């Protein structure tokens, strides 16, 4: 059914599908992180969307150095030196609307976000683990952190949407009559590259395999002598990297907004569940499907674009009713 829908959409609504693929690749990055955290730690990480938003603001800070001043609408410079001060960092590369500085900011933001998630695990979730708390407690704690992160961002950068660059965006023409923004091509390429890197980490390295082993059977992982706390820290670090790349790409595709994280939560969970919870490849395709369906559905005349995000909700309900283990089966 989903396949038929996709085939029809590719033929009939090509432009919407292109946007959907771009947004879907961003969702996919977030959903892979979400599903990994679920697999290894066995709880629904409600702060995932807000972590994504935080990392996008972190990149913004690194690029511009500004936070909201004490008066509304007036920014205050806080960083003495920013990524944009690097020689040529803001010169636009090729047809993109940004220079290599954005990549640097994205990489730094990935490091910072990984660090934040690892530290939050130490401060919050590890204590819950030591007390052997139930998964509901973990999820509620993550919900609390989500709200804290959102409030923090609102306090620091204010409610006005922000952009990384204000340059005009250029279109490029691809074969098969497809027109796409150069920036969107970058988003797609970056998302795929990072997914491939995550895949290599999970399936080719010892620590990645240990992550999958822990998702499979935590007690046996412990019995085998796997250092589970190390693997948990690595899981957060990887999730942080994925979240940061997703967050920056999303801000590039749309704009920075403190509500971004909350809005994303439903599509992220829909994607992870669609792909089978704990299954990273599944989460990737789940993200793509949710992205495409969302983008195509808003082209229907009888629906107002405001319904875009309820699409994820409908997908979530349908999948839970029909195939609760997801399209590709739960498990890593």
């Amino acid at each position, binding site marked *: 059914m989903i396949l038929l829908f996709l085939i029809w959409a590719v033929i009939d609504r090509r432009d919407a599908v292109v946007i959907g693929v771009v947004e879907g690749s961003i969702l996919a990055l977030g959903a892979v992180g979400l599903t990994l955290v679920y697999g290894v730690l066995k709880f629904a990480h409600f702060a995932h969307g807000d972590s994504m938003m935080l990392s996008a603001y972190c990149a913004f800070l690194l690029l511009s150095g500004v936070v909201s001043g004490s008066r509304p609408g007036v920014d205050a410079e806080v960083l003495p030196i920013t990524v944009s001060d690097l020689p040529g960092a803001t010169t636009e590369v090729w047809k993109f609307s940004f220079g290599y500085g954005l990549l640097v900011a994205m990489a730094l933001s990935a490091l910072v976000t990984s660090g934040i998630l690892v530290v939050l695990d130490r401060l919050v979730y590890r204590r819950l683990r030591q007390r052997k708390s139930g998964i509901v407690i973990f999820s509620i704690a993550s919900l609390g952190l989500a709200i804290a992160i959102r409030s923090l961002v609102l306090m620091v950068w204010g409610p006005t949407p922000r952009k990384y660059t204000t340059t005009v965006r250029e279109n490029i023409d691809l074969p098969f009559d497809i027109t796409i923004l150069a920036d969107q091509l970058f988003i797609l390429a970056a998302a795929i590259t990072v997914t491939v890197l995550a895949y290599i980490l999970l399936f080719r390295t010892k620590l990645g395999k240990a992550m*999958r082993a822990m998702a*499979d059977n935590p007690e046996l992982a412990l*019995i085998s002598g796997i250092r589970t706390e190390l693997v948990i820290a690595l899981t957060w670090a990887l999730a942080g990297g994925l979240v940061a790349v997703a967050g920056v790409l999303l801000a590039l595709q749309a704009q920075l907004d403190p509500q971004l994280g909350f809005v994303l939560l439903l599509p992220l969970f829909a994607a992870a569940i669609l792909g089978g919870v704990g299954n990273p490849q599944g989460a990737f395709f789940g993200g793509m499907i949710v992205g495409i369906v969302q983008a195509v559905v808003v082209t229907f005349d009888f629906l107002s674009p405001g319904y875009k995000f309820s699409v994820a909700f409908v997908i979530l309900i349908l999948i839970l009713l029909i195939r609760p283990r997801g399209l590709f089966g739960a498990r890593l």
Partner: protein
Amino acid sequence: MSVDSTVVLETRELVTGYGELEILHGVSVSVCSGEMVAVIGPNGAGKSTLLKGIFGLLPVQSGAVLLGGADVTGKPPDRLVQNGLSYVPQVENVFPSLTIQENLEMGAFIRRNGVRERIDEVFRLFPDLAKRKGENTGKLSGGQRQMLALARGLMLDPKILLLDEPSAGLSPKLVSAIFERINVVNKAGTAVLLVEQNAREALSLCRRGYVLAMGRNRLEGEASNLLNNEEVGRLYLGA
């Protein structure tokens, strides 16, 4: 390899259980270097609980676990593994979504080098697994899963191996196949503490045995004596 009288593993009056629930009320067993020792007893006697208690998976209320003479009571599993103890649980003893090869790699997680060589050595003991090393473990039959679980437990070349009902749910042919492998492993010098339902086979393989009942030591002695013991015969050997 001969059995000598150095004790490699010992529990002294071990008291443990699940949360508030006390299951073992003071169990003492010991295994000498290179020795194979059977633990038998009825369902619910606490045999699996004993192994979990030894391996630091349950809170020990009192008593002690000694490994190579050193007190390791309550030490986390990665420490025990480092000191030559290895444990194959009764159920859920493989990683189903990892390949056979990856399962073995996880068994050697704390090992820095020589992992590939060790995998080859272990594969020599289990040629059937070697043929399917790239396959996902989820598809394996019960017998092959038990073989893999055993192989995983051997990856660190342990001094002593704790096995919890390796023959459970297998056909008679596979039961003898797995016992044969365990015997090979033991002959190569690894001491084994073998928990079994198949009491007759286990006792005929082992030198000594313990009978547990209701969380306490019931009987112990030479395996041949236990095999001929009237009470053991009546209760566990179906004679």
